């Protein structure tokens, strides 16, 4: 009886948790459906919702102020969403999809620091809801009355959204635009306002979802990325654009988590399995399974190929004499760097970081740009390389160079497995599957104390005596990174690189001329994983320690930002982007507490000014002028 009671209590708990998750995911799904923007800032809207509700309750007055405060929070976040759409996104609808993603990620940084500035770094727990402070006895257990209220909210909002979408002209236009927004425009509907309205509605739902959690969950600055990860999962599992699907997925995931907590530690065939530890990873396991078995989601429908495949990618330019001269000058400068900067030893330390970032970004660009596979979980291979190096060194005591050679193979092995599944998908689905695998890898590393050191990571990963000097290690890093970048470039200009680009531009045509598209993409995926692993191994030895941070989603996002910042269409892009990002990150972080907002602001300015990326812009300036001259 008691087991049953606790089981029911956990199930109800899951139901209550599902409601807010559903609200956030429904908003994300609506926005994606109509604007095709994957809004990374959606978790930030949720976070702001809690904070605003907290302040609104304090302002209106605790007790009677509670319910109006929820509405104030929802409306305020909706207004923020509308402003974001009008001031920022509206200017970049014609930019490549990934650039929009970069812009919304910059928003995450800006909003996080705005919240830090307004509400401070402490956790804030709101008051309980008036009238629902007590609890209800269910099977002899006390269950919070507020949670029962939350359980009702989910289906209620689902019903209201359904009515809005099927019974109003606005809803009809939203559904039509989800399918073919250009045609909706040709029928006389001003898309700009439709987009603003949808964005505001989606943001409002996220804000309400956050506000409703006020008495259950303290407002913290970590809620944004945590929430967006969960919301992505729900949207993908339920089916992109399907609101009922989002509800089903939110329920499924919340209940599975509840069941894992209820199971606790169970002994199966003599092995103790801690199910409660699975809660960190269960949603990503569900997403991975759904994406492999039914890529369009539980209640989604297979998506037709997008009406316009976006702009045609320009062919890669072979390096001309100018580019070669510039590269040679850069390499010379890098070789001479330790000698030049002997007065300020920190320069070499930063340079090592930059070089490692360059290799990481170049390997990500290798599959994102020329292969068109947008990996959101590239940090997994970086982390596998880093942990591979650390564990091999500690377990076998092998010499460092042997470890440095073996660690990338560990990463490549991981990429073999993930790649096999991933190349069966494309677009957002592929991105989400790579993210799911990366999160699973992160959760394993984070919790496997005996093998990976758990959340503390591993320490004492130092290179041998002859590399202990930072300048010597810089030389080794420089040599390996240059070699890595060169090999990756060489592959892109080889027949295999042509096959990659052919597969990106048209799967059907590439198939028809005899290219085994999946195989080519799989091999490309593994090559990218291998070099990311090398970057990770170099990173481990440069820091002397390694933590789960190195394969966290934040690291993957850093990689994306580097590639997009530099420009995805140019080979110099990831190099420029990685250097710029790492340098900015380092400089800004040392000069202000609000480095995220600065960084986000800089990214936003760059996105608005240079929609082709920094390197793409530079190329246009150099070559655009020259082309114009030669035409004359």
């Amino acid at each position, binding site marked *: 009886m008691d087991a049953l009671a606790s089981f029911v209590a956990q199930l109800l708990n899951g139901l209550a948790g599902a409601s807010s998750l559903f609200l956030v995911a429904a908003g994300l799904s609506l926005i994606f459906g109509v604007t095709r923007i994957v809004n990374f800032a959606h978790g930030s809207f949720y976070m702001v919702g809690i904070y605003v509700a907290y302040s609104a309750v304090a302002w209106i007055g605790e007790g009677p102020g509670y319910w109006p405060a929820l509405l104030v929070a929802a409306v305020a976040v909706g207004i923020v969403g509308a402003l974001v759409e009008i001031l920022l996104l509206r200017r970049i609808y014609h930019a490549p999809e990934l650039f929009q993603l970069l812009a919304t990620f910059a928003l995450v940084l800006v909003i996080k620091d705005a919240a830090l500035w307004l509400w401070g770094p402490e956790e804030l727990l709101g008051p309980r809801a008036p009238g629902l402070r007590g609890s209800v006895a269910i099977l002899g257990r006390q269950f919070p009355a507020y949670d029962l209220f939350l359980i009702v909210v989910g289906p209620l909002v689902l019903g209201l959204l359904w009515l809005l979408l099927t019974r109003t*002209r606005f809803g*009809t*236009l939203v*559904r*039509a635009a*989800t*399918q*073919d927004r*250009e*045609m*909706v*425009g*040709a*029928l*006389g*509907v*001003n*898309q700009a306002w439709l987009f603003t309205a949808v964005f505001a509605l989606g943001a409002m739902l996220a804000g309400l979802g956050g506000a409703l959690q006020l008495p259950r969950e303290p407002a913290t600055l970590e809620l944004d990325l945590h929430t967006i990860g969960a919301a992505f999962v729900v949207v993908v599992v339920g089916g992109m654009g399907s609101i009922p699907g989002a509800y089903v997925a939110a329920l499924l995931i919340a209940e599975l988590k509840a069941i894992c907590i209820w199971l606790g530690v169970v002994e199966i065939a003599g092995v103790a399995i801690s199910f409660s530890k699975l809660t960190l990873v269960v949603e990503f396991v569900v997403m991975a399974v759904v994406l492999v078995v039914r890529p369009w989601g539980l209640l989604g429908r297979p998506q037709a190929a997008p009406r316009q495949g976006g*702009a*045609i990618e320009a062919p890669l330019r072979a390096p001309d004499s100018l580019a070669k001269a510039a590269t040679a000058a850069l390499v010379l400068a890098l070789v001479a760097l330790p000698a030049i900067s002997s007065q300020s030893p920190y320069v070499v330390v930063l340079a090592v970081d930059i070089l490692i970032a360059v290799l990481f970004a170049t390997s990500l660009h290798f599959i994102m740009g020329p292969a068109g596979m947008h990996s959101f979980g590239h940090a997994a291979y970086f982390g596998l390389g880093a942990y591979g190096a650390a564990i091999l060194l500690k377990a076998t005591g092998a010499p460092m160079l042997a470890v440095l050679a073996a660690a990338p193979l560990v990463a490549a092995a991981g990429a073999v497995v993930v790649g096999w599944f991933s190349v069966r998908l494309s677009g957002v689905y592929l991105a989400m599957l790579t993210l799911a695998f990366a999160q699973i890898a992160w959760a394993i590393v984070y919790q496997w104390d005996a093998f990976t050191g758990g959340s503390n990571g591993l320490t004492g990963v130092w290179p041998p005596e002859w590399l202990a000097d930072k300048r010597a290690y810089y030389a080794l890093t420089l040599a390996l990174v240059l070699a890595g970048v060169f090999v990756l470039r060489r592959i892109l200009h080889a027949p295999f690189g042509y096959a990659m680009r052919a597969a990106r531009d048209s799967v059907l045509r590439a198939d028809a001329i005899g290219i085994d598209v999946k195989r080519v993409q799989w091999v490309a995926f593994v090559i990218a994983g291998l070099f990311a692993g090398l970057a990770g191994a170099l990173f481990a030895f440069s820091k002397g320690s390694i933590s789960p941070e190195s394969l966290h989603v934040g690291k993957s996002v850093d990689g994306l930002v580097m590639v997009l910042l530099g420009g995805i269409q140019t080979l110099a892009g990831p190099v420029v982007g990685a250097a710029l990002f790492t340098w900015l990150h380092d400089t800004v972080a040392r000069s202000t507490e609000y480095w995220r907002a600065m960084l986000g602001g800089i990214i936003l300015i760059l996105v608005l000014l240079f929609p082709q990326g920094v390197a793409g812009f530079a190329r246009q300036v150099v070559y655009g002028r020259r082309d114009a001259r030669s035409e004359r």
Partner: protein
Amino acid sequence: MSAAGPSQGARPLPREGASEAARAVPAGTGHAEVLLDVHALSAWYGAAQILFDVDLAVRRGEVVALMGRNGAGKSTTLKAIMGMVDRRRGTLAFMGSDISTAEPHQVAQAGLGFVPEDRRIFTDLTVAENLEVGRQPPRRWSDGSEASTWTPERLYRLFPNLGGMPDRPGGRMSGGEQQMLTVARTLMGNPYLVLLDEPSEGVAPVIVEQMAHMILELKGQGVSILLSEQNMHFAELVSDRAYVLEKGQIRYTGTMADLAADDEVRRAYLSL
């Protein structure tokens, strides 16, 4: 009227010194108000130029056919008028107002309806909902008289097939039914002029017949039509005048009857 020769194109069109209205509309085709006046329209997809200085005009009450082979630029002309191409240049006037740089929704709101060749039905929406998306307020002509105003009921009478299935999702309709729905959806915007892209393509002969009937019916209601067409027989049935496009340039301008009688032009620009 006859063609000057296939290499040079049709009669040299009066360009310089010609008055605005006379530019593309040959004399003797009526004196009704010019609704749509297109001058020197060029259009691009990416870096590829598809249209080269296209001139054409449609008067109130006219059905005008834009003829040409596959790839001649017929659909691109219609899309460029709507503002649905990557880049365009030229002067476009609709009922006296300049729409050269207007967004597609502004063009549609001005009363220029567009029926795309590939139909682009909203497959998740029902027939009635598809019509709702196209709905715009009633219009008046500049002289104050009421323009043709469409309601779902009226359209169901014009297309009885649609009337029998208002709640069917667009995705579960036959090709011919979808073709009717895409026309009906555009009519819900009460357009003065409809750009109709290849209405006879890919549908059964019985539907083609219904389409011809529908076009004449619309004409009777005072709706003007610019249709792109490859099917000479169909165009002849419904059109007053014709333009012939080849490689993105207008090669012939004249009445439909003259074009039908001109074997030389037809062989040069239309026969397969």
